[in-house]
């Protein structure tokens, strides 16, 4: 926004000018995630290439595809843990880098190791300052307030002081979402957050993430094999297969023609009893839950 050149300019005009400035030319907000001609190759194996993707603040994007398609690698690229082989990646206008505090991260649900030594609010607090040196004696009140708010936003206030090891998988996952969002990130990355949860908890956790995505204005990338709890909630889908990809709304991507073309083989997408079933694509979507439970 430009400052008025002189205070002597008639007030009605200057006032009008300022208002117009604010409404017609908002400061250009960069997309939360921007990938340009991005490619990732491990040795001779090409995971994907030529990936152009913009994810806007508040957008909920599902990242789907078979095992080994490079979904988790994509998240690692955004986290700055793996460099791209080609192209560029920007997070909230800045090149991706390690330890980016613009990103919140929710990992696979698995029982928190040794977690009887920590309570819910401690876990959430680590999301705020766990990467900082020192013991954190300053600004305790401000920290406590933000942790409380984050817990309330995911309806986890009731077990804020319970040892995490005593909580169910769904409760632990709620705390992790609060942990990822407490620092008010621009981007929320979820890597299989529904694994080993039962169907009703899968739905609740998916809905919670969708709700928090809209409310917080974070762009969410949600890697999952569990398409059914998520598809009704997402804005767009990124489907990765064999080095190729499709980006579009769930209806544009999740149909027999598109997936057959992407897989290069006959794939059928059918609606069975309200559930979407992908047949012919290694039938990943059906058995993955059990793998998770076997851990």
């Amino acid at each position: 926004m430009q400052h008025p050149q002189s205070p002597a300019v008639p007030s009605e005009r200057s006032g009008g000018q300022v208002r117009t400035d604010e409404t017609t030319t908002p400061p250009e907000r960069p997309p939360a995630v921007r990938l340009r001609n991005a490619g990732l190759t491990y040795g001779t194996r090409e995971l994907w290439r030529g990936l152009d993707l913009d994810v806007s603040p508040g957008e909920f994007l599902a990242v789907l595809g078979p095992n080994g398609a490079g979904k988790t690698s994509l998240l690692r690229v955004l986290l700055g843990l793996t460099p791209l082989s080609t192209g560029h990646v920007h997070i909230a206008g800045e090149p991706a880098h390690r330890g980016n505090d613009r990103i919140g991260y929710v990992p696979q649900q698995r029982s928190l190791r040794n977690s009887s030594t920590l309570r819910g609010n401690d876990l959430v607090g680590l999301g705020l300052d766990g990467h900082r040196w020192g013991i954190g004696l300053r600004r305790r009140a401000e920290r406590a307030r933000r942790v409380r708010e984050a817990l309330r936003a995911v309806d986890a206030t009731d077990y804020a002081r319970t040892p995490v090891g005593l909580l169910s998988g769904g409760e632990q996952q709620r705390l992790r979402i609060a942990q990822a969002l407490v620092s008010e990130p621009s981007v929320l990355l979820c890597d299989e957050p529904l694994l080993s949860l039962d169907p009703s908890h899968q739905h609740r956790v998916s809905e919670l993430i969708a709700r928090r995505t809209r409310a917080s204005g974070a762009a969410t990338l949600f890697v999952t094999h569990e398409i059914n709890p998520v598809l009704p909630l997402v804005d767009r889908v990124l489907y990765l297969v064999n080095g190729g990809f499709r980006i579009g709304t769930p209806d544009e991507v999740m149909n027999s023609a598109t997936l057959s073309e992407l897989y290069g083989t006959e794939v059928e997408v059918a609606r069975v009893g309200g559930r979407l079933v992908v047949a012919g694509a290694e039938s990943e979507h059906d058995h993955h839950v059990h793998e998770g439970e076997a851990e």
Partner: protein
Amino acid sequence: MNRLLEALSRIFDFGLTGELLGYPFVQQALLAAAALGLVSGVLAPLVVTRRMSFAVHGTAELAFTGAAAALLVGVGVTIGALAGAVVAALLLGLLGQREHERDSVIGAVLSFGLGLGVLLLWMNPERAANKFTLLVGQIVGVSSADVTLLGVAAVVVLLVTALLYRPLLFASLDSEVAAARGVPIGLLTPVFALLVGVATALGVHVVGALLVMALMVTPGAAAVRVTASPVKATVLSVVFAELAAVGGILLSLAPGVPVSAFVTAISFGIYLVCRVVGGLRVKRLTRGSSAVAV
């Protein structure tokens, strides 16, 4: 048996205890124990959370080897123990990067270190009683120079631990998320192993290499039984370690029983009580939260 009963009957001989407290070597011993209790109490909850009990044991064995070597060449025992523990921490950090190998690496290294230590003691022409104390501790042998060294090492360990505290806690609980947040996991692991090594070496002089776990592990294991708050766990662990270390020396003075017997007994007693209290607490908490939905 009679010897034990006779010795124990002197525990409450406060006159004798008071008289012994007047000696400088006893005061130095108490100072050393207090420094050790503070350091080990702070580190113990992290050792337990990071599942490093066996690593502490392995490090202590190599501290013993270092101390044995120091005795042989005539350098201070504490310096020797420190050197041994640092070598141990580096070796374990270097060879045990992969989690599934860590156990076996420690087993292999510690048995070799113990054997080497025995050889070094055998080569030493000094009388055997002196050597035995490296394994089970000999608090009365702490000199004022040792106390100074212990104090300095304790301060350094505490400062570095305070600096690393939050990332260490984060990495111990959820290394994946911590790495995503930019916590340098690959750096923290060896640095913490080094801290544990230094603290363990300090313990070798007081309770001996074999029993150092009574201070480096048990107080933390007891504390995390009764609280899930990291701050409370650290405070409790320090209190428990001080009770064991300082209390053990005070009780051992009049009876003349080895210090380590009392230190380990107090430490284990606290652990048992905390297990019972912790069991009741979990029962209460699970009943309380069972009504909570996801």
